[in-house]
């Protein structure tokens, strides 16, 4: 175990902890589950540090890991690593008190639930995490040529359900991409 390895991981953790925890919180029912997903995701990154890409590819890579960890949790894999007990407790106490600072309005969330699971997933990555088709492709293990038309169709379906593009809601949502955002190849 070298100092270099630890330093590399500390930087990775510092740069992406909020994003990975946010990713997990937006997709889980209970704060404690989000803590577990976050802990397991970074545990994978720690063990596979040599495989973690550099630069802007890091976050999509981590999201891809978190997505698989989440899938394991959803299908009933409750093997706990017993990491992050304090984080679980802090999250359980903090999250219920938060009512502002959400990424999208409730009506958009409701409409997205009427889409197929696949459409939901690309839209969530685009709207919640702000990923471009290229980055979504990295998370899902697909090619950009597949993701681009899928995202287009998913957005079109959501627009049909909502009747129009959702108005920019308040709070932090201005920092996140909206449905009116143009896709880039």
């Amino acid at each position, binding site marked *: 175990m070298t100092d270099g390895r630890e330093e590399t991981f500390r930087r990775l953790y510092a740069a992406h902890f909020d994003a990975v925890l946010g990713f997990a*919180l937006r997709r889980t029912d209970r704060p404690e589950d989000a*803590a577990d997903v976050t*802990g397991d995701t970074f545990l994978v990154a720690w063990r596979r540090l040599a495989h973690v890409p550099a630069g802007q590819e890091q976050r999509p890579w981590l999201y891809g890991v978190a997505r698989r960890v989440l899938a394991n949790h959803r299908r009933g894999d409750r093997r706990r690593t017993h990491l992050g007990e304090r984080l679980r407790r802090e999250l359980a106490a903090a999250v219920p008190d938060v009512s502002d600072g959400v990424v999208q309005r409730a009506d958009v969330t409701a409409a997205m639930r009427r889409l197929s699971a696949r459409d939901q997933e690309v839209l969530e990555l685009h709207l919640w995490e702000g990923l471009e088709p290229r980055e979504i492709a990295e998370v899902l293990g697909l090619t950009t*040529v597949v993701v681009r*038309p899928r995202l287009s*169709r998913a957005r079109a379906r959501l627009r049909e359900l909502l009747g129009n593009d959702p108005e920019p809601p308040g709070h932090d949502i201005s920092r996140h991409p909206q449905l009116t955002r143009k896709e880039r190849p």
Partner: protein
Amino acid sequence: MNPKLSDDTVAGLPLSLGRAELLEEIMSTPVLDDRPAPTVRDERRPRGWLVPAAAAAVVAVLAAGTAWWAGSTGRAPESTPPVAAVPEPGSFRVVLDAPGWTIESAYEDSKNHSGEVGYVRGDASLQVNWYPASNYEDRFEDRRHITDPPSDGTPVEVLGLTGSMWAYSADDHTTILPVEERHFLEVRGSGMDQEEYLALLGQLRPVDVAGFDAALPEEFVAQSERGDAIGAILDEIAATAGRALPAGVSRSSVSSDQSDPYQLGAEVTGQVACAWVRQYAEARDAGDQDLAQQAVDVMATSRDWPVLDRMDRTGDWPESIWEISDRIAAGDVPEDYTQWLGCER
């Protein structure tokens, strides 16, 4: 359900102790798996489409039609299949013969020797991708990490081959088949349980290009019809804009491998827009106001191109064309327009 907090809000939560403790806990765990990715055992695998059903652990796909090489009887194989059943060269695509399932989308990336066909039935979907053999190791390695710890998946027998299946969830599975014909297949089924998914795998049928075309819905464009379909789109644009392409750009230079009308329309209009944006950029640099204005005028008609009107009901590609049109009208050529429009084909 947790609130859908933004990352900024998450950053403001009082979690500093838990965050720091988790970091130290993770770094105190032993490093178990930091070796380079293992090479996939494909080279040691028996070659040929006709890999016999192997281990007892294999999940047999027993639905009728599983053994495509068993001929019209659809019987599952009882012994080594006949050599004569080897498919024609180029038959690495597959189609789904299952009642109620329809093709929703198709995409052909001939440059990268890959493609996709998507089937739907209600909320369930089956996506078949084919990729070049060179992508096999990376993709297999990626799929191994669907499970924790990583695994080679559950062996399943599909099309006479032993593939590897992983479950993203109880109703979402994917299977990768070994390399054949310098390609390999991945089949993902969502919105169905494992039993239904395996039954569908048993209803896949390998086809060559002609067989693939024959399975496409009526509104899709077969290879033999593609030249006419491209010509018809160019004629529509010319009828609206006065001309479809700049002087010096021939209609025969516009091509596409797509059968899905949406994808075909995207590739054709992308090439048309590329030609005009290129003319605009070159004319502007050369100080030729007339040619620059001609490009702006033609692209300004794009909101009336019938092909984009049809596509607008399916997806957002038309918005890319319209945005480019607006940008050059404002004197702005986006640096990355060739990527936007797929000019580099």
